[in-house]
């Protein structure tokens, strides 16, 4: 041989899988929900999403370049996904400066403080969202009434904003109104499914989110374990409550289609970095999220609990990884 050849250990081929492909895959899966949001909330959806993505990427760049002085990796798409998911968790009429604060908290505190991609224990977008919810409760809970493309961005004007279906339910139950009566004022299940309701801009479109899930599953970006265990737990838990007392409890389908449940189960809880590494761990994590969500919704002060439930279960992930192991090959001798 008269020229140098590479000598390295096997394997000598690679799947071609990359962080970028996975991240942009998530972005593609979120497109249908974004379109629905645009359809119901108009220009506000674009403004909120745009500001959120741009500021998340910008903050990541600034922190990597000037504070941590490490390699800038904004092109890997993870900051874009955080920005997109943060936007999906905000009302589409949120003032621009609040969005920027949310992005700073998401990227700065939620992600970079821990060392950046791969190291953060809590879902960055949810850290930002919950920070805003606690700091700006009024702005964060006055959702625009879906009124199509003509909905203005700043629509804090009376008549243009309203609570979410879950908010109406919580308020009504507090005053002792039976669920059946409340349901007459609430959007129909079909409206809930297509997204014709008040809520955070990305959480309303149940059908579109499920389409996104299908894409993620087909491309093997996520596995079924987390979304299915969350949704099943919520269905069973609320189903039991509904069977026990249908006067004070909404039906299970209502719970699945409202609030951030589908967005949370499909896109937030499945965040690689903050979810468990083994299938049995994922199932426990999913069941935990489902239970905590409904406990907050039914017995807590907040009408909605998905964000808190995911953040709480994020905290258990290192423990799950440590003690919940995959089924090893040859662990139990089977003679089939």
């Amino acid at each position: 041989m008269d020229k140098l050849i590479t000598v390295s250990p096997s394997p000598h081929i690679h799947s071609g899988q990359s962080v970028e492909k996975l991240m942009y895959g998530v972005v593609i899966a979120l497109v249908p929900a974004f379109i629905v949001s645009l359809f119901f909330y108009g220009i506000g959806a674009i403004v909120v999403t745009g500001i959120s993505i741009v500021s998340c990427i910008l903050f990541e760049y600034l922190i990597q370049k000037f504070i941590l002085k490490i390699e800038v990796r904004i092109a890997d798409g993870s900051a874009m996904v955080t920005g997109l998911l943060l936007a999906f968790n905000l009302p589409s009429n949120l003032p621009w400066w609040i969005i920027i604060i949310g992005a700073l908290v998401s990227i700065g505190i939620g992600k970079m403080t821990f060392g950046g991609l791969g190291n953060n224990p809590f879902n960055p977008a949810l850290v930002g969202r919950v920070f805003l919810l606690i700091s700006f409760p009024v702005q964060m809970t006055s959702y625009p009434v879906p009124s199509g493309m003509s909905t203005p961005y700043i629509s804090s004007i009376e008549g243009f904003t309203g609570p979410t279906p879950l908010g109406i339910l919580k308020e009504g139950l507090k005053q002792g109104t039976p669920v059946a009566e409340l349901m007459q004022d609430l959007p129909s299940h079909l409206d809930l499914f297509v997204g014709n309701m008040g809520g955070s801009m990305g959480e309303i479109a149940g059908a579109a989110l499920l389409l996104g899930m299908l894409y993620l599953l087909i491309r093997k970006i996520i596995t079924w374990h987390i979304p299915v265990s969350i949704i099943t737990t919520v269905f069973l838990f609320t189903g039991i409550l509904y069977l026990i007392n249908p006067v004070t409890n909404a039906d299970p389908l209502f719970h699945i289609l409202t609030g951030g449940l589908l967005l949370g189960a499909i896109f937030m809880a499945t965040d690689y970095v903050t979810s468990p590494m083994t299938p049995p761990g994922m199932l426990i994590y999913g069941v935990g999220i489902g239970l905590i969500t409904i406990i907050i919704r039914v017995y807590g002060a907040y009408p909605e609990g998905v964000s808190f439930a995911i953040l709480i279960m994020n905290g258990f992930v290192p423990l799950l990884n440590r003690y919940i192991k995959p089924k090893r090959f040859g662990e139990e001798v089977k003679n089939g």
Partner: protein
Amino acid sequence: MLKTFTRGGVHPAENKLSVNQKIIDLGLPASVSIPISMHLGVPSKPMVEKGSEVEVGQLIAAGDGFVSANIHSPFSGKILKIDKYLDPSGYKRDSIFIDIEGDTWLPEIDRSSDIKKEFSYSAEEIIQKIKDAGIVGLGGATFPSHVKLSIPRGRKAEYLIINGVECEPYLTADHVLMLEKSEELLIGTSLLMRGLKVDKAVIGIENNKPDAIEKLQKIALNYKGISVQALKVKYPQGGEKQLIKSILNREVPSGGLPVDIGAVVFNVGTAFAVYEAIQKNKPLIERIVTVTGKKLKKPSNFRVRIGTPINMLIEAAGGLPDNTGKVINGGPMMGKALPDTNIPVVKGSSGILLIPAEESKRKAVEPCIRCSKCVSVCPLGLEPYLLMALSQKSLFDRLEAEHVMDCIECGSCSYICPSGRPLLDYIRLGKSEVGKIIRSRKK
């Protein structure tokens, strides 16, 4: 649904470029070096000296102890010297140098292509003949076959499994062997069944070789107890543990042997070598080698004598392509990259794969995003990301507790990792350290 193993696995592009190439006999080189360590176990003891004349098939190095194997001269000529030479392990090791003169075979070797079906040997005779012929596992592990056939006391073989999976991308040596030497392969299988005293044998073949499945199924009708099982294509199905799981749905216990659950596995190449050794008196002196690569002119399957330098194989397949970046002995998933092409073919060489420069370099290493893909593809149910981290931190007690020694080094984790992390590199490092600790504990 086709059978396959249940846990993990990947499906790399198959790239079986040489699939339609008939087996070609390669000519003789001028001089060769035969490494005395071509098998798992103790290196053989040279039985010849400088200046000795040898004939084809003559014993030149004898197995040293039980786990070792005889080596026979693949060529006739004069022994030049016994000296260190580069072999496919990448190290210089003792080798017997032969200056080739003519092609004189030992007279007892039957070189005709007549198929000899009948045999009346006892199990012990069969095992002895296999031992004498220096047969080792030709799938790549090169474990001496007579050791595998000697079932430990207290255990009983129930099934013989013949491995025709060839799950490595690019390689086709086993495939063409199954097509061209079908009858011989089945006779070899019958011999191994007799050696093991079992009455059931299953030949496992992945579904991407429908011609081989069909042909062997037809011929197997004439052989009692032998069946052919088509399998769904999934890497690493050619791994012993995975193949047994696919066919028998039994799991070899962690740290155990296949015979613990009643199975013994041999490669199709080994079964053919057994046929030749017993029915034709021919020791293991040649094998089928695939020479392949995307830029290679004529990807081929050659029958070559052990010891032939691989550059001769590459020349016969159209020459080394200009931009070759890597030369691999074996397949792309588990093969070894060679530092040179002037290295001899050994008993375990199933293929020579030439990878172009642009595919030779690994992608840049990025942070682990904890996507858990490595966990989901691991066929042993291990957690490669964790094993790598523990290995990096030299936490060997925990590595052992996390079953690092179960790793079969199939490379599925490194293959799938979106961040291009060198998972298997670190796992190997950890395995070697943990192995040392385990051995020192036994002392």
